[in-house]
């Protein structure tokens, strides 16, 4: 039966209001906002959706969710299981929970090896916290697999994965043999939302917890040093155009832009 592995990261809620988004510059970390729970990274949830669409066609497809991070990551795995994935693997080890992208890729690759055999690995095009966009493709290199990035559609049949890839000015269709890695983008469409019954079912699905020792590897080393993290000040003085009527405001705006030689 086909086996798809989906990577799922948990991130601070990107919908956090800008006024509440704050950074601890000394710790080089984003300060959690009380009352706002971390959420599954959106592109990863879209990846789970891509896997479920394949499972919709081939019912005996098994989807395994792999997530690395602290205890709270269990919620992200549970969300994917409630969407319809079959089982979860939670890598939870203080030695790697704060890893950079490269050490994370090495840890995840070791976990994926342990889950052999598999046909397809799906990751989000980037996680919506650091926006680096390297983990999926790096895993492909570590495991010596072909990879296709930034997909809007993923199909799998007869040992071939067919991907619609988003380009700057259009799209291309790419075929890759299984097993391979695909990273998905928001153009794939909205992920399904779990129903109450599915959430209850998900509670019964198995989530394994692995540590670095379970993976049989040495703790991977970071390859980057975060030197600084800060919130840039991009606010500028705004000249608000006002008037008695919409007509007057619209015309005034055009006149002001003309005065500034902008039209």
């Amino acid at each position: 039966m086909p086996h798809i592995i989906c990577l799922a990261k948990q991130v601070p809620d990107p919908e956090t209001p800008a006024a509440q988004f704050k950074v601890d510059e000394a710790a080089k970390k984003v300060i959690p906002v009380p009352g706002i729970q971390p959420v599954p990274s959106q592109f990863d949830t879209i990846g789970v959706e891509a896997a479920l669409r394949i499972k919709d066609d081939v019912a005996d497809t098994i989807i395994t969710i792999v997530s690395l991070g602290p205890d709270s990551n269990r919620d992200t795995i549970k969300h994917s299981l409630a969407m319809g994935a079959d089982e979860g693997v939670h890598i939870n080890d203080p030695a790697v929970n704060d890893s950079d992208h490269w050490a994370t890729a090495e840890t995840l690759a070791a976990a994926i090896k342990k889950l052999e055999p598999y046909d397809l690995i799906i990751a989000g095009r980037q996680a919506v916290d650091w926006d680096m966009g390297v983990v999926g493709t790096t895993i492909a290199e570590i495991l010596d697999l072909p990879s296709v990035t930034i997909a809007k559609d993923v199909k799998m049949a007869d040992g071939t994965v067919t991907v619609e890839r988003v380009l700057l000015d259009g799209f291309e269709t790419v075929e890759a043999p299984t097993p391979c890695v695909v990273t998905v983008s928001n153009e794939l469409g909205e992920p399904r939302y779990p129903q109450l019954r599915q959430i209850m079912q998900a509670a019964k699905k198995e989530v394994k917890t692995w540590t670095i020792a379970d993976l049989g590897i040495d703790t991977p080393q970071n390859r980057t040093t975060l030197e600084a993290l800060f919130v840039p000040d991009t606010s500028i003085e705004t000249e608000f155009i006002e008037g008695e009527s919409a007509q007057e405001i619209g015309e005034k705006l055009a006149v002001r832009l003309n005065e500034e030689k902008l039209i």
Partner: protein
Amino acid sequence: MASGVLVFGEATDDGGLNPVTKELIAAGSNLGGPVTCVLAGTGVEGLAQECVAAGAGKVIVVDDPILTPYQGDAYIPMAERITKEVDPSVLLMGQTMMGRDLAPRLAQRFSTAVAMDCMALSMDGDQLIAERPCYGGSARARYKINGTPQMATLRAKAVEPLAPDSSRQGEIVRQDAGVTADQVRTKITDRRKEKAEGVRLEDATVVISGGRGLGGPEGFKELEDLAEIMGGAVGASRAVCDLGWYPVPTQVGLTGKVVTPDLYIAVGISGASQHMAGISSVKNIVAINKDADANIFKASRFGVVGDWKEIFPAFKEKVRELKSA
């Protein structure tokens, strides 16, 4: 001992030099150089002199049909071999479809790391300092890379190209790709353009973008009218592209296009940080939004609070009148 800067330039689909190439060469020069530029693809040799004029000390031309269109499996062995030969201290690519795909894979081949989508690069002694947006553009991070080469991808228009100087001397060498078809595990079976007419968003001096506040896809007709009057291009927020109101390639933002017009008119766009990441270097933003607290106003030079449907037609007609005067 690794030294110098290796950059991977790019040609456009229609055979010109992708402007990011000159920006990469300038970035490499600013870091101290010398800059070696790789130009790979088909029919790219004619672009080599342009790279020399832009500041490259050496251009390595790799002309082979197997490299067009881009596929990671074809590029990786070529890029790995050239990187070994040149042994650069710093390696740069554009934050393009190629760079996004190739840079992390190449970094893994050298057990090094790459800072993606950088807005500023500098040197601290021998150490590259790479500054990049994160958290959807809400924050910035500065990285050091603990490996060789120190790699970064550069966001379009983040660095000014050097003034072209045709008297600059540079060495141009040809190399074979050294890649065979059996090394390429993927296969491109179809390729199509969506929306190629009019001014390219990335080149436009005026961009008029619409968001969810337009109320529906039909609102874009008004924006297109104004774009035609002003000789500009129309963009869209991710929300409306996801809703199918406007084509995906017009999406402006972190996961869409980075635009740098002289004037950006945002209509019904709230200004989510991921959208702002696509217009972070625009100096003149005009926002029309019914919500006075919309985030977009913080970065806007001119603001109008109100219903765009009432204000925009009058604005458009006045612009038409002023343009024809």
